[in-house]
C-alpha cells in the first residue's frame, strides 16, 4: 500500500502550482470569471505548450502518454489556484470521450488538436430534467435524413458551449426498446446552422449554457462510438469526470484551509492572533479532517480508475464525501475571515462558490449515496 505520489507526479504538482500562482493571480481569475469567454487564449496556449492538454492522451495521438492519475494530480493543482477556462470540458469531458469511443481517424485528428491547444470541446449531455443516470431523460433526438443526422432538442447546463469549437451532443437515435440502447454521441461543429447558445450566469461563474438544437445537420461520419452505443460510453466518461471534479475540489479545499490558517495567525483582535482562540483552532482542525479525508478517497478512486479497476463504489464515495467536505471547509473558512471574506475583492468566495457547484455537478451526495446503497446490496 502506498499513499505517496511518484517523483514525477510530485514534480508535476509543484511546477503546476508555481506556474498557476504566477500566471493566474486572483485578479486575473476574477476578470476571467466576469468575462463571457472565461479564459485567456494566451494562457491557454502556454498550458498547451507545457503539455497539460495532452497529458492523459497516448503519444501516438499527440499526447504526453501520462496516466489518468497524472491528470488528477494536475487538476488538484488547478483546483488549488482556481483556473477559469474550458480545460475540464476539453480534456476530461471531450478528450476522454474521444479517447474512449472515437475511431482511429477521430482520435488522431481531434486528440492532437486538443493536445496542441487548438480545439475546445464541450459535452452537451444534460437536459432540463437534470437526470444523470436516466437514459430515458434524453429527449434531444438525432434523426437520420439524406445521409446526415438532424439534431433537435434543448440541452441545459452545458459547460463552455459558448467557447467550444466542437460540441459532443448526446442524442436519442432510437425511439423503441430500452432507452440505454438508443443513445448516440455526435461530434457537432459549434458553428453549424441551427445551434443557439445562451450563456447562463452561475454561482461559480463556470460558463454553463443553454444550447438549442434546431434542425442541426451533422455528417454521419461525425458519430462517435457507433450508433446507439453512446450511453455506456457516457457513463464511463462520467466516472472519470466525477473523479476529476473531486480532484479540483480537494485542491480548492486545501487552499481554503491554507488561507484560513494564515489569516488566523496574523489577524489580531483582543490583543492576540485570532488563531489563539479555541473556536478558531477547532474549526481549522475540523477542516484538516475534511481535506485529508477528501484527498484519500479521491486518490483511491482516481488510482482505481487509472488502473482500469472497477470503481463504481469508490467514485460514488469520493464524490459524496468530497462534495460535502469542500462546502464544509469553505463555510468554516468564511467564519474565520469574518466580514472581510464577504467582499468580491477577497479570494475566499471564489472557493465557496466552486464548492457548491462541484457538490452538485454530476450528482450530489444523495445521488451518490443511492449508488453506494445499491453497491452495498442493501
Amino acid at each position, binding site marked *: *500500500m*502506498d*499513499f*505517496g*505520489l*511518484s517523483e514525477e*507526479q510530485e514534480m508535476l504538482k509543484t511546477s503546476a502550482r508555481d506556474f498557476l500562482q504566477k500566471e493566474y493571480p486572483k485578479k486575473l481569475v476574477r476578470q476571467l470569471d466576469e468575462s463571457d469567454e472565461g479564459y485567456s487564449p494566451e494562457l491557454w496556449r502556454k498550458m498547451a505548450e507545457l503539455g497539460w492538454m495532452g497529458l492523459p492522451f497516448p503519444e501516438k495521438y499527440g499526447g504526453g502518454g501520462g496516466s489518468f*492519475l497524472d491528470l488528477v494530480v494536475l487538476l488538484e493543482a488547478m483546483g488549488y489556484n482556481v483556473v477559469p477556462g474550458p480545460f475540464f470540458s476539453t480534456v476530461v469531458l471531450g478528450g476522454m470521450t474521444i479517447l474512449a469511443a472515437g475511431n482511429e481517424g477521430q482520435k488522431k485528428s481531434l486528440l492532437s488538436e486538443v493536445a496542441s491547444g487548438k480545439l475546445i470541446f464541450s459535452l452537451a449531455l444534460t437536459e432540463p430534467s437534470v437526470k444523470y443516470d436516466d437514459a430515458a431523460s434524453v429527449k434531444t433526438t438525432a434523426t437520420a435524413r439524406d445521409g446526415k443526422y438532424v439534431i433537435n432538442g434543448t440541452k441545459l447546463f452545458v459547460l463552455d458551449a459558448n467557447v467550444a469549437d466542437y460540441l459532443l451532443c448526446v442524442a436519442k437515435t432510437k425511439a423503441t426498446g430500452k432507452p440505454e440502447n438508443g443513445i448516440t454521441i455526435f461530434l457537432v461543429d459549434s458553428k453549424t446552422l441551427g445551434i443557439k447558445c445562451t450563456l447562463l450566469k452561475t454561482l461559480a461563474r463556470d460558463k454553463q449554457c443553454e444550447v438549442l438544437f434546431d434542425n442541426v445537420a451533422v455528417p454521419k461520419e461525425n458519430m462517435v462510438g457507433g450508433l446507439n452505443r453512446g450511453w455506456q460510453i457516457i457513463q464511463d466518461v462520467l466516472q472519470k469526470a466525477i473523479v476529476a471534479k473531486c480532484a479540483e475540489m480537494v485542491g480548492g479545499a486545501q487552499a481554503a484551509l491554507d488561507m484560513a*490558517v494564515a489569516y*488566523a*495567525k496574523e489577524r489580531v483582535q483582543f*490583543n*492576540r*492572533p485570532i*488563531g*489563539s*482562540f*479555541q473556536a*478558531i*483552532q*477547532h474549526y*481549522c*482542525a*475540523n477542516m*484538516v*479532517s475534511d481535506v*485529508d*479525508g477528501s484527498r*484519500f*478517497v479521491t*486518490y*483511491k478512486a482516481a*488510482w*482505481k480508475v487509472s488502473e482500469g479497476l472497477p470503481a463504481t463504489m469508490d467514485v460514488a*464515495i469520493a464524490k*459524496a*464525501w468530497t462534495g460535502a467536505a469542500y462546502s464544509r471547509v469553505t463555510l468554516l473558512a468564511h467564519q474565520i475571515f469574518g466580514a472581510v471574506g464577504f467582499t468580491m475583492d477577497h479570494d475566499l468566495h471564489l472557493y465557496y462558490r466552486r464548492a457548491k457547484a462541484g457538490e452538485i455537478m454530476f450528482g450530489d451526495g*444523495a445521488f451518490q*449515496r*443511492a449508488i*453506494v*446503497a445499491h453497491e*452495498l446490496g*442493501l
Partner: protein
Amino acid sequence: MDFRFNSQEEAFRQEVDDFIKRELPTNWAEESHYWPGGYGTIPDFEELNPAAERFRHRLADKGWLTLAWPREYGGAGRSNIEQAIFNERMSYHRAPGPGVATLISGPTILLFGSDEAKREWLPKIARADIRFWLAYSEPNAGSDLAAIKTRAVEDGDDLIIDGQKTWSSGAHVSDFAWMLVRTDPNVAAHRGISLVIVDNRSKGITIRPMINICGFHSFNEVFFDNVRIPKRNIIGEQNRGWYYVMAALDFERLVVPVGGFKRTFEELAQWARETKRDGKALSDEPLIRDKLADLAIDIEVAYMFFWQTAWMLDKGLVPNIEASVLKLVATQLSRKLANTAVDVMGPYGELESGAEWAPLKGRMCTGYLDCISGLVGAGTSEIQRSIIAIRGLGLPYTSG
C-alpha cells in the same frame, strides 16, 4: 500510489482471520457487547474471562501480541501495515487481545526504559502473563493531565506514593499500575512528573468501583495511602515521565477499531434487510438507504486514515497529528454509527441488552451510551482538535 496489499500482507490477513475464527469460542463476536470506539465496554476492563485469557496466551505464543516489537524482545518484527491488518481483523471479530501492557507499557519501556527494566518487564508482557492499568487521570487532572497531585516522595531506595487516581479502567482486574506521579513539586508542572510501575498487591492501595453509564464496571477510583515502591520501578529517568507518556499517547491513538465499525455496520445492514414493515424491507426505504450509505462512506474514510497512518509509520514518518485526526474521526464515527443504528431501529433501538425483542442483543443501545466515552476519553475531541491546530497547523497557543 497503490491501494493494494501485497501477497505477504494478504496471506497474513488470511492467517490472522483463520486463527481468530478457529481459536475464539463460537459466537464470540455475536455475544460480545464490545462497542467499537468506546472505552466502557471493553471486556478486558471489566472482568477476567478464562476464554479471553486462553485466547490471549495463544496470540502471545504466536508472537502476535507484540507484532511490531523487535524480535529480541519477543516481537515478530512485522511492519506497521501488518500490525494494522492484525488490529483490523481483531476488532472485526471483537477479539480480546492487546491491552495496556502490550500496546502502551511495552512500547514505552522499549523506547525509554533501562536495559534492566526491559529485561524485567518485556518478556512477561510479551507472554501476556501480566496486565497493566493506566494510572493517569485524577479528580483535578483530566485534560490538564500535568496538574496531577499524587506525590511520590523519596525514602532511601524507595518512593512512597500518596494520592488518588480516577477513571482507572481495569484497575480491579490488573496486576500493575502504569502510573504518573509527581516526584518534584518545585518545578513547572510537567517537569516534575515520573512514570512508575506499582504492584497492585502493594499495601495501601484501595480500589473503589465506579459503574459507567452502560451499566458496566469498567473503571474505578484508586487510593494510594503510603504505598511503597522500589526506585527501580521508575521507568526511564526521574522527572521525565510526562515526555514519555506524550510520546506513548500517539501510539495508543493509532489503535482504532475500524474492523469493529465494519462488523457492526454489516450487522445493522443485515438487520435492515431482514426487518420488514408491511411486507417491505427497511433497507428498501430511501431515507434508510441514504443513512446507511452515509455511514458506509464514513467508515471507508476512517479506514483510509487508518491505513495512511500505518503507511506513514512504515515510511519512518511520525504521525503525531495524524494520530489525533484518526482518534477524532473514529470516535465521531462511533457516535454516528450508534445514533444512526438507534434511529433506524426506532423504538426497538431503545431496548437494552437482555430485554425481550431487543435487536442484536441490544448492542446498538449499549453503543449509544458507550460512544460518549470515546469522545471524552484518551484525550477529548477538543484536546485532539487543539493538538491538530497547534502542533499540526502551527496556530498559536491559547494562553497567547
